[in-house]
């Protein structure tokens, strides 16, 4: 712990007020989402607690605002603040899982391609090239569409969350794979790797124990930046109505539902989830930017 506080990383962190601020905001977002069942004033999924007569209440500062519902209510009388906290939970869950999935896949394939080279490298990198020519949101839509068509509705609803995680994760692995491959190509010819090879260690062991730790720092940067992308991708999918099922609405679902009421003056139903999404993604991206700069030796 002490070593961490004395590191360059910590030093550069404390020197950047924007980074400190965004770290605090990101922390609040994540804490609010994770602790939603404890912190949220209402449980928007408990049907028995909904009061239809409280529907369409404006935020507390509006003329008909109600202190029980600080950010107003939606068309079913659900508290917007609670719905956003619970929705952020789904968004973050999907975001984190998708990033972990694409990181694992991308790093593994990148290591293999870089270390083994030859045909394996050629095949894997061409696949990555092909996938990079598609916008990643299109790949995610494609995966979701195929799964939706292949599975019956009931089954699909049950595993919808996993489908979205898979769809977003799979659309993003080439970035990781290409970066890791590049670093591995450099590391492969270094003396410590050759030494390991000379004493007869198996390739897998060399990759995992010796090469991997030395190629991880750029991966961390990409992963952080990708978290923001994954959250946005999930919101886009849900906004288009192909993401998580409406029974567990994410921020994107909330924005989509609220969109129907934008013309009629009930702006808070869509604006607040949108603002929450922007704040969350912005803070994560600022952190990622800082991490990239801090780990870049050229900028030191």
């Amino acid at each position: 712990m002490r070593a961490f506080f004395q590191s360059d990383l910590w030093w550069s962190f404390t020197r950047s007020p924007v980074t400190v601020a965004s770290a605090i905001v990101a922390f609040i977002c994540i804490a609010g989402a994770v602790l939603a069942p404890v912190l949220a004033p209402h449980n928007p999924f408990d049907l028995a607690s909904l009061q239809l007569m409280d529907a369409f209440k404006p935020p507390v500062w509006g003329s008909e605002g109600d202190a029980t519902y600080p950010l107003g209510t939606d068309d079913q009388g659900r508290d917007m603040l609670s719905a956003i906290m619970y929705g952020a939970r789904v968004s973050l869950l999907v975001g984190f899982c998708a990033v972990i999935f694409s990181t694992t896949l991308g790093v593994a394939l990148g290591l293999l391609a870089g270390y083994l080279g030859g045909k394996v490298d050629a095949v894997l990198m061409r696949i990555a090239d092909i996938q990079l020519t598609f916008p990643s949101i299109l790949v995610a839509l494609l995966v979701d569409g195929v799964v939706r068509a292949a599975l019956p509705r009931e089954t699909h609803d049950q595993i919808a969350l996993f489908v979205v995680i898979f769809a977003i994760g799979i659309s993003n692995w080439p970035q990781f794979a290409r970066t890791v491959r590049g670093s591995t190509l450099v590391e492969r010819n270094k003396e410590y790797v050759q030494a390991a090879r000379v004493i007869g260690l198996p390739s897998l062991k060399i990759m995992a124990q010796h090469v991997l730790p030395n190629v991880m720092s750029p991966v961390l940067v990409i992963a952080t930046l990708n978290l923001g992308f994954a959250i946005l991708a999930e919101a886009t999918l849900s906004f288009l109505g192909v993401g998580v099922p409406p029974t567990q609405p994410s921020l994107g679902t909330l924005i989509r539902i609220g969109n129907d009421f934008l013309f009629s003056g009930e702006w808070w139903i869509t604006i607040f989830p949108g603002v929450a999404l922007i704040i969350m993604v912005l803070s994560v991206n600022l952190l990622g930017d800082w991490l990239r700069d801090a780990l870049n030796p050229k900028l030191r």
Partner: protein
Amino acid sequence: MMRRMMLAAAMLLGLGMAADALAQARVVRWAASGDPNTLDPHSQNVGTVSMVLRQIYDPLIARNQRLGLEPGLALSWTQVEPNRWRFVLRQGVKFHEGEDFSAEDVVFSITRALAPTSNFGIFVDTIERAEAVDRFTVDIVTKTVDPILPNKLASIFMVSKGWSERHNATRPQNTRQREEMHTVRNTNGTGAFRMTAREPDVRTVLSRNPDWWGWREAGNVGNVTEIQFRPIASDATRVAALLSGEVDFVLDPPIQDLNRLRNAPNTRVVEGPEVRTLFIAMDTFRDELLYSDVRGRNPLRDLRVRQALYHAIDIAAIQRTIMRGQSVPTGTLFPEQVQGFVREEDVRLPFDAARARALLAEAGYPKGFEITLDCSNNRYVNDEQICQAIAAMWARVGVRTRLNSMPIAPFFAKIQRDDTSIFMLGWGVPTLDGLYSFQSLLATRNGAQGDGIWNHGRYSNPQMDALVQRMKTQQGAERQAAMREALRLYREDVPHIPLHHQVVPWAMRSNIQMPHMANNEPQFRWAVVN
């Protein structure tokens, strides 16, 4: 030089003609959320289809602006014998493609509507056959006495025999098998407009048929020369299109935007009741409920449970928030425009959550139970939101409700397999006679034409069946007494939980004048564009 002058002259002529056409063109660009899934006149008894076909085809008996019966292609009709109706036809009528309209087209159309692939069986269920007496007289022979035959025939469009035979379309298209035939994309009616372009899901263009008989009728000042129909599924886009002037008439504006539309310049909202009633139907047949946690018995067979679910619904809250006042809460099966309506029977069980809990406890479910509510999400005004609200209201009295909302295609398929324990349905009454509702929704299904064909809760009460048989044959006061008795039984037995009659607003540019129709089918023949 000569050439240039000729060119200039041609351009001038062209300009003049264009200006002339502009002065006369009265185009209405019409948007609605859905597109007809076929244009076959006897294949789909669905509002989205008939609202377009009604511009193109004429029935024997038409409906006026208040939905009363008036002569269409038949000038008069009389019941010459109890089982025989005689229709005297209008002479000199031509189909859009030039064929003369005569008695054999009527016989052909009725026979076509009787075919197994027809979706209009409920309107011709009592008909045995149609006979041409002479070129302009037709007899329709019924199997039983049918006092409301004229009401039913107002829903059967007349097609040309020769045209249908030429194009291999002598029977209706089989929609369930997605059959492809000439009538799916082509029309040939006798009506006020003829179709000039059709791109499914994109646009349908109808042009004025100058030879239509109705233009000469007294009092018809309709001046529309062209209708351009465009389906726009997204609510927000449809409203934006009207506000920006991209369309002139929106059949189904979302109700949350009505205030904005009323206040917008050059836009008008016309409201009126629709002859369509929303209700929740319950499975009162199975011994064990589907999609529930109750084993070995069906709580919905217990009257007290059905009453409890009824008491739990706060219809005033639904009317105020979800429908924004655009609904008429009801306790009966159909609205007052329908023959047979009895005001004293239009009484709801009051909203009373405590009473609901007590009834559930009395029936042996003090802790409630779990149930799955099936619901459409793109058919009726705010259908999904209504179901969500009801699920919450039931949850509050202990009935844990899972909501299963679907687009109409899978929803109708599911309930038509009886694969449901409780579902919401909206029922329109095109014949404007109560029998249509009783027969389809409450009679025991017996394989006969029309009886219980939409009774997917399989409610069955011999008393109700006897009353339905009485309504089919009796007339006058006796028939009205049967209706009254059936409505009382409906209130007592609670086979459904009635919710409300829909109110349908139409939004249009303020230069369009047209009567609001309670069947939610605009009639552009009566529209005036200034």
